[in-house]
């Protein structure tokens, strides 16, 4: 039961790919900052993201998606959340792992 927080663009850093290797049932993935680009529906990582959406809960920070103009371009099944829900996700999971650009 881990909350994975991704803030690196998958186009610049393998953080998403590495995170995907260790996802388990009951985990959740939260996309923040440039990590939100991982959910672009026509992007190179859409296939991977769809697979992840089928496995665990995937959320994206609404403010960061809006800032980047990608709110309407995200893969189906990715849930928009605010800071309050981020806190709720953190509380609901045993631990968090941060995946940022190396």
């Amino acid at each position, binding site marked *: 039961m*881990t909350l994975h927080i991704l803030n690196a663009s998958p186009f610049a850093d*393998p*953080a998403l790919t*590495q995170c995907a*290797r*260790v*996802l*388990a049932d009951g985990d959740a993935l939260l996309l923040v900052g440039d990590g939100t680009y991982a959910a672009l529906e026509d992007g190179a990582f859409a296939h991977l993201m769809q697979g992840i959406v089928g496995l665990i809960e995937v959320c994206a920070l609404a403010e960061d998606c809006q800032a980047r103009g990608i709110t309407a371009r995200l893969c189906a099944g990715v849930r928009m959340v605010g800071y309050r829900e981020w806190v709720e996700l953190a509380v609901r999971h*045993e*631990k*968090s*792992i*941060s*995946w*940022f650009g*190396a």
Partner: protein
Amino acid sequence: MLCRSAPYGSSRVRDALDLAMALGAFEQAVSLLLMDDAVLMLLPDQDPSPAVSKSLLKVSGALETFGVSAVLADADALAKRGLAATDLPEDVTVLGTAELAETFARHRLVLSV
């Protein structure tokens, strides 16, 4: 502790080593997991100019003395960089993907540096 950065390009690996040793010195059970370019800190023959940095491999050799339980390295990251198990210090444990997932599950807290 999870480290994914290359050793000399930033201070992250050095910071990770310092923090791991500090935690170990205070008797916290701590393991250091290296993924992506961070596995390059395990290369032998590192010889940085003393003005720039200490050899991070030598620093990592002191981890056990400071109570750090394990140094773990991602097998996939090693293979991508052409490193073999024989290139690594003896006390490094190499993990496949299933063992990586198990390692994350087993630890109560994961600190990314």
